[in-house]
């Protein structure tokens, strides 16, 4: 069905798509990624136009699915949809796209938009009962925090089967008669996942990094004696560049080195990284700073990196809210105190005879 339709699965409804009488959207797609899909996948990782990266929710045909073809459910975040259809290359299947407001399966399940009610609603809207003869839906396992499988069955007759965590395992899962190996059930936070989120961290905090660097550079010219610009040229520029570089490095290395940074607490991991990078930077550049200024610098970078990694809990796949709550309660006041003491010492260092 809909063989003639081209893959057109972006946020605009496909003009050639069949709109079902009851209002459900029906479209066709294929497994191949176009150049735009590849560029979009890179852009979305760097949070360029992330909010617009959506697919129209509804039912899609992949290949030429018959009434006994499997039905796979995903979110309308385009990257979720793209990863699924690419993983399904060569398979005839139905893809049911839930309206998760453009958010991926995992986050949407946590918020409840990838949820029982939305799934039941879409099944009815798209008249899935008439399109397939079996009564089975394959959901990504990471959708389970939002969907009660037994409720869906009670309300629609469709049995929910949780597939693997990663879309890449989906064909193996289908070939194994819907059996997932234990490894397919586990979420890992592997180095390539960390590599994928690291640049996002940098993009996310780059503006703050520039502003903080500028503030430190300006404060390094206090007290203003004589010509401000010559003082700024003298040391302000170095301070700015060193801070931004060290900070950028911390935001990239933090996620990458996460398993090897000491302790389980993210704030301590970050503080250690901050101290190490601050010391390394000073050692490489070797500015003639007073002890007070050097100490202030290390303290400030430790506080900054500690906060950065504390925030990074939101991008990981293993931190529990009660653990994070406890860590925030202890770490946040310490980070603020370190920042204030560091800034005071940094400014005060200007009044020493040796800068």
């Amino acid at each position: 069905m809909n063989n003639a339709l081209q893959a057109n699965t972006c946020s605009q409804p496909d003009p050639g798509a069949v709109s079902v009488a009851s209002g459900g959207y029906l479209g066709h797609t294929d497994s191949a990624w176009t150049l735009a899909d590849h560029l979009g996948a890179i852009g979305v990782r760097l949070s360029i136009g992330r909010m617009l990266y959506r697919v129209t929710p509804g039912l899609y045909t992949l290949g030429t699915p018959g009434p006994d073809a499997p039905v796979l459910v995903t979110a309308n975040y385009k990257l979720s949809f793209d990863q699924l259809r690419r993983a399904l290359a060569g398979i005839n299947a139905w893809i049911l796209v839930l309206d998760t407001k453009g958010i991926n399966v995992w986050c949407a399940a946590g918020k409840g938009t990838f949820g029982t009610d939305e799934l039941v609603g879409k099944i009815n809207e798209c008249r899935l009962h008439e399109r397939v003869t079996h009564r089975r839906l394959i959901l990504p396992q990471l959708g389970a925090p939002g969907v009660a499988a037994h409720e869906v069955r009670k309300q629609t007759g469709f049995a929910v089967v949780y597939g693997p965590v990663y879309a890449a395992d989906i064909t193996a899962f289908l070939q194994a008669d819907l059996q997932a190996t234990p490894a397919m059930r586990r979420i890992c936070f592997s180095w390539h996942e960390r590599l994928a989120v690291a640049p996002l961290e940098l993009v996310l905090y780059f503006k703050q990094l520039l502003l903080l660097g500028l503030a430190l550079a300006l404060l390094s010219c206090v007290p203003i004696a004589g010509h401000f610009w010559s003082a700024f040229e003298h040391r302000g520029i170095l301070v700015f560049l060193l801070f931004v570089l060290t900070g950028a490095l911390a935001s990239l290395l933090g996620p990458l080195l996460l398993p090897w940074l000491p302790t389980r607490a993210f704030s301590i991991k970050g503080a250690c990284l901050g101290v190490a990078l601050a010391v390394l930077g000073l050692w490489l550049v070797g500015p003639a700073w007073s002890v007070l200024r050097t100490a202030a610098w290390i303290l400030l970078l430790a506080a900054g990196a500690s906060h950065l990694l504390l925030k990074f809990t939101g991008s990981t796949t293993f931190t529990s809210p009660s653990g994070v709550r406890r860590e925030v309660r202890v770490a946040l006041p310490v980070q603020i105190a370190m920042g204030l003491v560091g800034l005071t010492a940094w400014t005060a260092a200007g009044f020493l005879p040796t800068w």
Partner: protein
Amino acid sequence: MKYLSKDVSLRLDVDRCTGCKMCTVVCPHGVFAVENQKARILDRDACMECGACALNCPVAAIAVNSGVGCAEAIINGLLTGQETCCGGDTCCCAPKAS
């Protein structure tokens, strides 16, 4: 990798459990095992309180205070009294797996 675990809120009511194994299917961290028709918590430390097991247990034998383990959401919560993940439509965890 594991996170701080002293206060993971996961609770299992073994008497209610029918041994259906749903919790072992949905948990992405291998927290449960089912032996002799009864679920058992194998690795409490690994639980990230996602709530999948509690929601999918057909006899409500599992309870957990679920939420997002995201410092930004929790800091927002301290400031505004409502835990939202970075606020609004987007989410701080958007680039994660599928």
